[in-house]
Structure formats: C-alpha cells, structure tokens
C-alpha cells in the first residue's frame, strides 16, 4: 500500500462523506460546510491525478467563491432549518430505487474499464499546457465564456437589485 | 391550353375576391362568383363533347426534394412532386355536378345575413377544394384539396346552422381527420415506394409490375385507402358524423355536403382503389359487398324509424351510398358505371331533398314529421317537389335514381344473384321510409300555427333565439302568407333540380358517355 492509495482512500472517503452529509444535515450552514469537505477532497484527488492547476482553481472557485456566495444567500434568506425528517422519508424512497439501479448499471460499465495506454503525468508545466490549449484549440469557447459571464453579470444585477414599484 | 384547368379550379375566386373588398351585397357577389365556374365548366363540357377532346392536362414544376445530408446511408434519389391537373370524362361529370350544386346552394343561401361575406368566401373556398380534388392528377394535390374541403366545411357547418352545429362540426373534423390520416399514410408510403404520386404513372408502374410492393405494404395501402374513403362515404360504423351534419347544419351546406362531398368517396375509391390496385380490390370484394349490403339495410331500417325529416334523408343517403359501394365492389363495367351514375344522381336527389328541407324549415321552423302535416293544402309546390325527389330517391323509372340503382342491381345479378336479390329488397325498404315521410308530411290537417300572431317564440324556441346562431330569416312581417308564396331564390334552384332529375332519367345516355373511359 503506497502513499497514493492511502491518499486516494482518504480523499475519496472525504468526498463521499461530505456529499452524504450535505443531504443529512438539517441546517443549511452545516450542509454547506460538509459540501466544502467534498470540494476540498476533490481538489486533493485532482492533485493525485497531476492536475495541480485545476486543483487550485477548484479550491478558489468552489471552496472560495461558491461557498461564500451560498453563505451570503443563507444569511440573506435567514435560512434556519433544512428539510424536516418526516418529509425526507416521504419524498426519498421512491427516488432512491431508480438511482441505486442507475448506479449499479453504470458501475457495471466502469468497473472493468482498462485503458490500453499508459497513464500520463502532467508535470510542472501543467499550467503552461492548459494555457496553450485554451488560447489555441479552445479559444472560441473561451471567448464565449466571456460573453456568458457578461450575460450572467447583467442577469444577476437585474435580478438581485432591490427596488420598489 | 396551359392554365385552363387552373382557371377552372380557381374560378370561384375570380369574382370571390370582391367579397374581401365590398361589404354590402355579399349575396349578389357570391352568386356571381359561383356562376362563373358554371360558365367555365360548361366551356369544358362543350369542348369535351363537340371537339371530342378526351383528356386535358396541365403541369407545372412544384416541389423538389433533395435527399442529402446522410449521403453515406443511401443513394440519394431525386424526388419531385409536380403541380399536375388532369381532366377526363369522369372528372368532368363530377365537376359539372360540383359547379351546379354550388351555384344552386349559393342561390339558396340568399337569406344568410350574419357574416355573409365570410359565408360566401368559405363557400367559394370549399368549391375550390372540391373542383381541385376532382381534377387533381396526383395524390398529393388530391390530398391538399381534400383537407381544404374539410377545413372549410368545418367552419361553414360550425357557424351556419342551428343548435348542435358545433358538435356536428367537430364530429366532421375528427372523423374526416382520421380518414385523411389514413389517406396521408397511404400516400406517403406510395410515394416512397414508387417515387411518384402521379396517378397515371402509379397505375402504369403498379400494373406493369415495374415496382414490386411487398404484400404488407400493398395491403396496408389498400386498407388505408378503404378506411379513408369508407369514413367519407360513409360506411356503416363511421356514419354518425354525417347524420349529425345532415340534421344540424344549414340546408344549403348540406346540399353541398351530401351532394358533392360524399361523392369524393366514390371518386376516390374508383380512382385509387380500383384504379391502382385492381387485383387486391377483387380479393376483398366479398367483404365490400357485405359492407355495402349492411349499409343499405342499416340505412333503410334506421330511416324508417326517424322522426326528423332530415334524419330520414340522412339515413336514406347512407342506404344510397350503400348502392354506390355495391356497384364499386362488384368491379364489373356495369357495376362501376352504375355506381358513378348513382353518385351523380344521388347528388342531385339529395340536393332537391335538402332544398325542400330548407323550404320547410323557413316556413314551419321544424322538420319533425310528427309536427308537420297537411303540407298539401299549405304549400302544394313543396309537395310537388317532395314527390319528385322522393320518387327519384326510391328509384322510380323516368327519374335518374332508377338508372343508377338499376345498373347496380343488374351488375349484381350477373355475378352474385343473391346479392342482387338482397339489394332489391333494400329498394323495397326505401319505398317504405320515403313514402312514410312524404305522406305523413303532405296529408292530414295543417299544423296549428298559434305562433302566427306574435307567439312564434315558444313554438320555434330552437330557432328564434338569436344567440343560438339561427342564420336564416323567418320573415313574418311580410303581408302575404309566406307559407304559400315562394321567392325566386327558392323556386329557381328547385326547378333546375327537377329538370335535371327527370332529364337524366329519360335520357341517361349523355351522362353515361362520360364514363366510357371507365
């Protein structure tokens, strides 16, 4: 058992437990914090997969931006309780069976996938490679993302602006 | 010659356009606009007989399909559908019937006042549909005109009529929609299998065997066509919409509906059933004979127990269309000629019968046989018409009805004497219901007309209610008794009908000549 496996087990456990607790906690803030656990563990997994830049961005965007945004929303909407236990039981059982089925079906597909090629490690110039790709092959999506950001910015401003009519 | 047939098809619009512009005198414009097709129709009649031009056709390029995209999947074949019209004797016969009946119906609709321009516009569009359908040389065009008639008729019957017209309109739409769905399926299948929708080409391809359809495709096409026109005809289980139409809608529209639109089925079965698939037709002729007999007996028996004159005529039509189907099902030359003759003659007969319905309705506000009596004293003219129509309907010699039914039964005796016998029994039944209706209306005391002095409301509550959409006028204010006197727009079409019925009965040859090609 080498270090990679240990870290993998740790991080994946973290990701799954965090995900489970998002649904289990009744207070929205706790749910958010357990989501942060997932996000951070995910970035750990990315590092294991030699995607350091993405891992950094993951930390910044998810654990930073999105979590803070959510916290603001929780505070602004004075969120106190989450779902009550009674309702959870009523709504969840019909959904859980197809999802477990789905999981089994997909797991059957992925449990024996063995790529013929050797794994590739992206070393120190990971960021450089990403940058090069973004500005060559993915230039158009990149530009489109900027338009998308503009639209979202405008949209968020109109929607969130407080005014009386 | 190019464009002549298009002129024929779109001739109603030549003056009909005026309806969009001129607000007043809609009825004058409408009659003028329906008269123009009569002129054009007689021009073609003249050409057909005097100059001996047997077939006129017209063709313009229209739609082309570019199958591409997934080129790798299939060899792209270039398909086209052209705008093709063709006129032969049989089409001409139906065309003449159409223009005549539309013209007479337009005259009879003189009194319509509400949304008059819309009425005449729809009538003209309906006429275009009917004319186009009889001269369409390809199935695609036929279908377009076919649907056009359904939509126009939906609006006409839903708007102009009495209580229950909306229901009738929806029945019409859904039944005919279902029928046209089958037709569409058949047409698309044929188009894809053979690459053409042109009727003559299809005939050629299918008869010479250059296109081999597999059994399943062939039968699904034949059955689709049968169901489509079976609904239109109407054949027994699908007749309900037609009875509703007959009994709730303005008589002028019913004249067209019963006179022309039901004949689309004859035409369609003749052209696409027998014409394209003669072998398959022979194989199922037994089934068709059975349905034809069912129609005859069902129609006659139900007509016997109806209390509404309009429903009597409606079930009578079911029975008569049974004869038409019988003739077609026999498939012999005599049978087909008889069926076609019967179609045309039934068009004229039901035109006259529903004209009488219009006369009675405007005078007595009811067509209930139980309430009507003693018409002989009040309106002898109506009784005269009733007798002529009734006699023609039950197929007495010297009327056109005789020739059609005679030919059909003759054809039946040639191959299936049993069927012929049964059909003859059907004629006896027809005598029963027609005489019952005519006699009980004509004889007996005049109905008590308490309504005459201002209390019409109670007696005719269904009709006088403004909001129920009664669109023809009961003119009580006039000094002379309207029950006895007749306006021009009433007796003129009636006389024309009578002349045609008797004329065809005495000298049927000139109509049969149209069918020589068949």
């Amino acid at each position, binding site marked *: 058992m080498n270090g990679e496996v240990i870290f993998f087990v740790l991080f994946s456990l973290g990701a799954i437990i965090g*995900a489970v607790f998002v649904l289990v906690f009744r207070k929205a803030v706790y749910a958010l914090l357990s989501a942060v656990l997932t996000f951070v563990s*995910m970035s750990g997994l990315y590092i294991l997969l030699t995607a350091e830049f993405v891992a950094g*961005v993951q930390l910044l*965007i998810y654990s930073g931006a999105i979590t803070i945004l959510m916290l603001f929303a929780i505070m602004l909407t004075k969120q106190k309780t989450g779902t009550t236990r009674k309702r959870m039981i009523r709504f969840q059982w019909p959904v859980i069976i197809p999802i477990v089925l789905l999981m089994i079906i997909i797991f059957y597909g992925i*449990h024996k996938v063995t790529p013929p090629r050797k794994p590739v490690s*992206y070393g120190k110039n990971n960021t450089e490679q990403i940058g090069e790709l973004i500005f060559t092959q993915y230039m158009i999506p990149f530009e489109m993302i900027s338009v998308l950001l503009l639209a979202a910015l405008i949209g968020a401003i109109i929607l969130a602006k407080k005014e009386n009519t | 010659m190019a464009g002549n047939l298009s002129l024929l098809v779109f001739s109603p619009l030549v003056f009909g356009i005026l309806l969009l512009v001129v607000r007043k005198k809609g009825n004058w414009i409408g009659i003028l606009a329906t008269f123009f097709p009569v002129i054009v129709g007689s021009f073609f009649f003249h050409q057909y007989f005097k100059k001996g031009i047997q077939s006129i056709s017209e063709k313009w390029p229209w739609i082309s399909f570019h199958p591409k995209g997934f080129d790798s999947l299939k060899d792209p074949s270039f398909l086209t559908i052209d705008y093709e019209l063709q006129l032969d004797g049989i089409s001409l016969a139906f065309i003449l019937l159409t223009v005549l009946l539309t013209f007479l119906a337009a005259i009879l609709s003189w009194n319509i006042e509400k949304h008059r321009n819309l009425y005449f516009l729809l009538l003209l569009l309906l006429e275009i549909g009917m004319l186009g359908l009889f001269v369409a040389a390809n199935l695609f065009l036929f279908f377009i005109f076919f649907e056009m008639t359904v939509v126009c008729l939906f609006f006409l019957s839903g708007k102009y009529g009495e209580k229950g017209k909306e229901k009738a309109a929806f029945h019409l739409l859904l039944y005919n929609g279902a029928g046209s769905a089958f037709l569409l399926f058949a047409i698309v299948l044929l188009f894809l299998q053979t690459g053409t929708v042109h009727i003559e080409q299809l005939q050629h391809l299918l008869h010479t065997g250059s296109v081999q359809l597999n059994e399943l495709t062939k039968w699904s096409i034949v059955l689709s066509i049968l169901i489509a026109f079976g609904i239109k005809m109407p054949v027994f289980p699908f007749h309900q919409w037609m009875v509703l139409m007959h009994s709730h809608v303005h008589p002028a529209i019913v004249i067209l509906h019963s006179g022309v639109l039901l004949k689309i089925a004859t035409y369609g079965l003749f052209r696409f059933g027998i014409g394209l698939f003669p072998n398959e037709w022979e194989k199922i002729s037994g089934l068709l004979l059975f349905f034809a007999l069912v129609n005859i007996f069902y129609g006659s028996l139900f007509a016997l127990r109806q209390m509404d004159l309009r429903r009597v005529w409606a079930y009578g039509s079911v029975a008569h269309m049974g004869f038409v189907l019988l003739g077609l099902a026999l498939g012999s030359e005599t049978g087909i000629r008889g069926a076609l003759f019967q179609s045309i003659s039934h068009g004229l007969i039901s035109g006259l019968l529903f004209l009488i319905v219009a006369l009675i309705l405007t005078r007595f506000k009811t067509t209930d046989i139980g309430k009507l009596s003693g018409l002989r004293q009040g309106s002898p003219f109506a009784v005269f018409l009733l007798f002529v129509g009734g006699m023609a309907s039950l197929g007495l010699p010297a009327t056109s009805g005789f020739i059609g039914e005679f030919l059909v039964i003759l054809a039946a005796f040639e191959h299936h004497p049993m069927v012929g016998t049964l059909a003859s029994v059907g004629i006896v039944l027809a005598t029963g219901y027609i005489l019952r209706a005519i006699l009980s209306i004509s004889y007996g005391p005049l109905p008590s007309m308490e309504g005459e002095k201002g209390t019409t409301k109670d007696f005719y509550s269904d009709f006088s209610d403004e909001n129920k959409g009664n669109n023809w006028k009961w003119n009580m204010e006039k000094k002379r008794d309207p029950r006895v006197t007749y306006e021009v727009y009433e007796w003129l079409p009636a006389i024309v009908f009578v002349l045609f019925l008797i004329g065809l009965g005495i000298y049927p040859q000139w109509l049969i000549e149209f069918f020589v090609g068949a």
Partner: protein
Amino acid sequence: MVSLSAYLTVALIVFCIGLFGALSHKNTLIVFLSIELMLNAVNLNFIAFTKYGFFPNISGQVIALFVMTVAALEVAIGLAILLTLYRNKKTIDLDEIY
C-alpha cells in the same frame, strides 16, 4: 497504483448522491449544493480521463475549468432568483413556494 475505475467509481457515487439530493430535497439551497456535487463528479471524471483515459490528453482539464465557470454562473443566477423570490414570499422551501 490506483486504477481508473476507482476514480470513476468515486465520481459515480458522488454524482448519484447529488442526483438523489437534487431530485428528492425540497430546500432550494440543498438542491443547488446537490447540483454542485454532480458537477464536481463530472470534473473528477474528466480529470481522471486526462491521466488514465484511452487517449490521455490535457484537454479534459481545460474542460473542467469551463465546467467550473459555468457552475459558478449558474449558482450566481440561481441565488439571485432565490433572493427575488424570498423578497416576495419570505420562503425558499419548494413546498411552500408552490
């Protein structure tokens, strides 16, 4: 060495948990968080394939960056809508909204 299917399985589990939350929970914020979990699982898939895939190349990481951006956008707009709703209705519980 950890195999590809191990990463894929982790992603699958997280995805299914997220899907379950999104379909069954009635609290809007939790639904948003669940959708974020699903998107994270997607990213893990993409990045796992950049290393272990059948044709390993780095474009999966670029895609993951795009996905993150889109996720952030959707959350931003979602929260803005949530705020307007809260102003009008004083609740964000889906049961009470309807």
